[in-house]
C-alpha cells in the first residue's frame, strides 16, 4: 500500500486558477514567516522584547494622547479615536472583554470545552465585589476593593467547580446547553433575589485605592484612564500566568483533552481533574474582569450579564483565533471597539465602514487554510453565529414592529419593505453559507457568493436602518452575527490562529524532502 495515499499531508490541489494563486500566496507568506521566525529566533533575548514593550507603551499612552488632543483640538485621536463616546471608557471595556476572552480561551481554546455561559462567572465576580464592597448592599460589610477582588476571584472559582463538577461529564453540545443555562441562572438569580438588588442592582461599589497629587481620587468616575491601566496590568499578569500553564504538563493535558479526550485518558491524563481546572481558571479570570468592571461602573444590574454578552465573549475568542491568547485579545478589540467606534455615526460613513469591514474580512478569508481547530470549536462558532443571528432577527423584528405600529411613524410601508428585503437577504446569506459550507469542492462559489451577499447586505442595510432611530444598536450586533457565520465557514481558525505548528511543519517538510532526495 502506498504511503502517499494514506498520509494526511498536503491539502488537495485546487483546480481553480484563482485558488491556485491564493495557495501560492499562502505558500510564499508561509516561507516569509518561516524566514522571519528563524531570524527572529536568532536575536538576543532582550531584543525580542522590544516590539512588545513598544506596543505596550503605545497602549498605555493611547488615552493620554487622546485626552491631550481633545483638550487642544477638540477631537480625539484621528481615525481610531471614538468621537461620540469616552475613548478611555472604550479602551477599558475592550480590556475587560480581552481579559474575559483570555479566560474563556483557556476553557474553549485550550481544553476544547464549549462554554456558552461564561458571563455567569463575570457576573459572579462583579456581584461579589458589589455585595462585599458596597455599603448599601444587604451585607453592608463595605470591605475595601483590595479585599473584595480576591473574594470575588475565589467565589467565581468555586462557582466554576460547582458548575464543572456535575456537568463536565457532558460533552460538546450538551455541555454548551448546560453552560448556557448556567449563565441565565446567575442572571435570573440576581433579578429575583433581594440581597442582590433585583432589577435595580447594587450601587456604591468601591473603587481601587489611590489618590492623585491634588488629593482627588485616582480611580474616579469621569476619567476612566486609571481603570484602563489597571485592567491592562491584569491582562499582562494573567497572560504570563496562562502562558506558564500553557507550557506545562497542564497545558499539554488540556490540548490532549481537546484533541481526543478518550485517548488522553488512556495515556494517563486525569481528564476530569484537568477539565475542572480549566473551568476554575476560566472562572477566576472572568471573576477578576467582572470585579474590575463592577468597580469601574460603580453600579451594576442584571441587564449587563445577559446571554448576548456571553456570546460576545465567545465571539471574541472565535473571531480572534481560538487557542491563541494574543488572537483572542484582537477578537475582543473587534467585538467591543468596532461597535463603539460606530456609535452615533453618520449613516453614509457607517455604511462605508460596514462595507470596508466585510471586504477586509473577505480578503482575509480568501487566504484561508485548513482548519486548525477541532470540530467542537467550529460547531461552537456555528452555534454562536446561529444564536446571535436569531437574537438579532428577533430584536430587529421587534424594533420594526414597534416602529411600524407607532402612530408617529411617517412611512410604515417603506419600513415594511425594508424589513422584508433585509429578512430575505439575511436568510439567503445564512442558507448560502451554511448550505455551501457542506458541499466540498465549491470553495470559489462560496467565497464569491458569500462576499457578494455580505457586501450587498453592507450596502443596503444602512439605508434600511436609516429609517430606524435606534436601529444602529441592533445593526452592530447584526454585523457580528454575520461576521461570525462568515468566519465559521471560511476561516474557522480565527483571524490570528495558532500558527506556530503550521510554520514549523512547512519548514520541516522542506527539510525532509531535501534530505531524502539528496
Amino acid at each position, binding site marked *: 500500500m502506498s504511503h502517499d495515499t494514506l498520509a494526511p499531508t498536503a491539502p488537495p490541489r485546487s483546480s481553480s486558477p484563482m485558488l491556485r494563486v491564493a495557495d501560492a500566496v499562502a505558500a510564499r507568506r508561509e516561507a516569509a514567516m518561516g524566514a522571519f521566525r528563524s531570524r527572529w529566533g536568532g536575536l538576543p533575548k532582550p531584543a525580542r522584547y522590544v516590539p512588545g514593550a513598544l506596543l505596550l507603551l503605545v497602549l498605555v499612552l493611547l488615552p493620554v494622547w487622546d485626552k491631550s488632543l481633545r483638550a487642544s483640538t477638540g477631537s480625539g485621536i484621528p481615525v481610531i479615536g471614538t468621537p461620540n463616546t469616552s475613548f478611555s471608557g472604550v479602551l477599558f471595556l475592550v480590556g475587560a472583554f480581552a481579559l474575559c476572552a483570555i479566560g474563556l480561551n483557556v476553557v474553549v481554546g485550550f481544553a476544547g470545552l464549549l462554554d456558552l455561559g461564561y458571563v455567569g462567572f463575570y457576573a459572579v465576580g462583579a456581584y461579589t465585589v458589589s455585595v462585599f464592597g458596597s455599603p448599601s448592599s444587604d451585607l453592608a460589610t463595605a470591605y475595601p476593593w483590595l479585599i473584595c477582588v480576591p473574594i470575588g476571584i475565589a467565589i467565581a472559582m468555586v462557582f466554576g467547580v460547582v458548575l464543572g463538577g456535575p456537568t463536565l461529564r457532558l460533552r460538546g453540545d450538551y455541555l454548551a446547553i448546560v453552560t448556557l443555562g448556567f449563565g441565565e441562572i446567575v442572571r435570573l438569580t440576581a433579578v429575583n433575589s433581594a440581597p442582590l438588588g433585583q432589577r435595580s442592582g447594587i450601587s456604591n461599589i468601591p473603587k481601587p485605592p489611590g489618590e492623585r497629587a491634588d488629593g482627588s481620587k485616582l480611580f474616579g468616575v469621569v476619567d476612566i484612564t486609571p481603570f484602563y491601566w489597571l485592567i491592562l496590568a491584569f491582562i499582562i499578569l494573567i497572560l504570563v500566568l496562562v502562558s506558564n500553564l500553557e507550557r506545562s504538563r497542564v497545558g499539554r493535558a488540556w490540548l*490532549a483533552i481537546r484533541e481526543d479526550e478518550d485517548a488522553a485518558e488512556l495515556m494517563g491524563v486525569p481528564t476530569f481533574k484537568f477539565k475542572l481546572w480549566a473551568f476554575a481558571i476560566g472562572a477566576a479570570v472572568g471573576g477578576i474582569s467582572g470585579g474590575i468592571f463592577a468597580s469601574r461602573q460603580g453600579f451594576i444590574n442584571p441587564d449587563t450579564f445577559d446571554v448576548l454578552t456571553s456570546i460576545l465573549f465567545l465571539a471574541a475568542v472565535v473571531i480572534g483565533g481560538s487557542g491563541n491568547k494574543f488572537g483572542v485579545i484582537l477578537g475582543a478589540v473587534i467585538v467591543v471597539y468596532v461597535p463603539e467606534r460606530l456609535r452615533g455615526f453618520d449613516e453614509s460613513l457607517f455604511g462605508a465602514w460596514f462595507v470596508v469591514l466585510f471586504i477586509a474580512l473577505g480578503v482575509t478569508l480568501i487566504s484561508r487554510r485548513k482548519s486548525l481547530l477541532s470540530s467542537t470549536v467550529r460547531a461552537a462558532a456555528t452555534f454562536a453565529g446561529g444564536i446571535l443571528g436569531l437574537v438579532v432577527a428577533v430584536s430587529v423584528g421587534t424594533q420594526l414592529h414597534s416602529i411600524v405600529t407607532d402612530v408617529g411613524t411617517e412611512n410604515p410601508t417603506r419600513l415594511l419593505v425594508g424589513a422584508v428585503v433585509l429578512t430575505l437577504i439575511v436568510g439567503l446569506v445564512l442558507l448560502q453559507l451554511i448550505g455551501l459550507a457542506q458541499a466540498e469542492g465549491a470553495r470559489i462559489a462560496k467565497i464569491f457568493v458569500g462576499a457578494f451577499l455580505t457586501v450587498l447586505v453592507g450596502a443596503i442595510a444602512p439605508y434600511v436602518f436609516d429609517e430606524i432611530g435606534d436601529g444602529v444598536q441592533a445593526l452592530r450586533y447584526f454585523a457580528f452575527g454575520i461576521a461570525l457565520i462568515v468566519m465559521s465557514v471560511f476561516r474557522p481558525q480565527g483571524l490570528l490562529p495558532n500558527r506556530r505548528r503550521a510554520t514549523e511543519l512547512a519548514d520541516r517538510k522542506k527539510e525532509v524532502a531535501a534530505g531524502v532526495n539528496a
Partner: protein
Amino acid sequence: MSTPEPSAQTPDAVHAPDSILPDAPPPGVDESVDLPEPEAHVSVGENLLEMRDVTLRFGGVTALDGVDFAIKRGEILGLIGPNGAGKTTCFNVMTGVYQPTDGTVWFDGKKLGRRKKYQITRLGIARTFQNIRLFPEMSALENVLVGADARHKTSVPGAVFRLSPRHFREERDGHERAMELLQFVGIADLAHTAARNLPYGYQRRLEIARALATEPTLLCLDEPAAGFNPAEKAELMDLIRAIRDQGYTVLLIEHDMRLVMGVTDRIVVLEFGKKIAEGTPAEVRDNPAVIAAYLGVPEGEPTDVA
C-alpha cells in the same frame, strides 16, 4: 491473514532491500539508544496479566464469552482471530474502557476492578489504537510528553507561578525521555512536526513511542502493521523485538499471519468472543479449530495456513 508464509520463522529473510518510505529515510531501530528501564524489573515466566473468565455483554450481544488467558512477563503474546472476534474488545477491557460483565482482570497481582482508565495506565498498561488516535495538532514531541506526563505530578499550583522545582525537573526529564523515545522509534528528526502531518507509518511509530512514554510494563499494540507494506512490517517486527528486549511485555493484535507467527512467543486465538486456541505459533498454526475459523471447514484440500 492474506499472506500465509511457511518460512516466517526466519524473519530476517523477509528484509526488503529498498527504503520503506518514498520520501524519507528508513527509520529503522536505532540500536544505540536504550529504552529507559521499566519500573519493575522483568523476570520472564510469571503471569503479568490474567484474564480470568472475562465475559462482556452489550445488551443481547456477547462480545467476550468467558475469555481466560494470561500474559507472562517478558513475552510477546499474539492475540488473533477473524474480524469481530473480540480482540479489540479484549484490549478495551484490559485498559478500562469497558467493565467486564463477569470475571476479573488481574494485572501485576492487582485486580483492575473499577479503576479509571488513567489509573490503569499508571498501573503499567499502555496501548496503541487500531485507528490511529494521536493528538493531531500537537507536535510529535508533545504527543510523547503527554504520555510521559502520566508519571508526573505537577498540576496547576506548581505550574502557574513556575515556582515548583519539581515542575522544572519533570519538564527536563520528560523532554529527555520523550526525545530518547522518538529516537528509539526512529522519528526524532520530526519531533516538532504536528502529528497530523506525519506520514502514516511514522504516526504508527509515534503511537508506540507515546505508549512507551507512560512507562508501562505491558504494551498493547492494536494492529500496529495495518496498512504497512512487507518491508515496513519487517521493520515493525524488529521494533517490537527491540521493545521486548528492553524488558517490556508485549501484547499484539495483528491480522498479518507472517508478522504474528514471526514475532510472537505465544498466540491466543479468539473467535466469536471465545478463546478457541492457545499455544506457540507452530501449535496454533496446526490447530484445526484455528484453520477452520480462518478458512472455514476445509473440503478435502489442504489449507494454506499450515
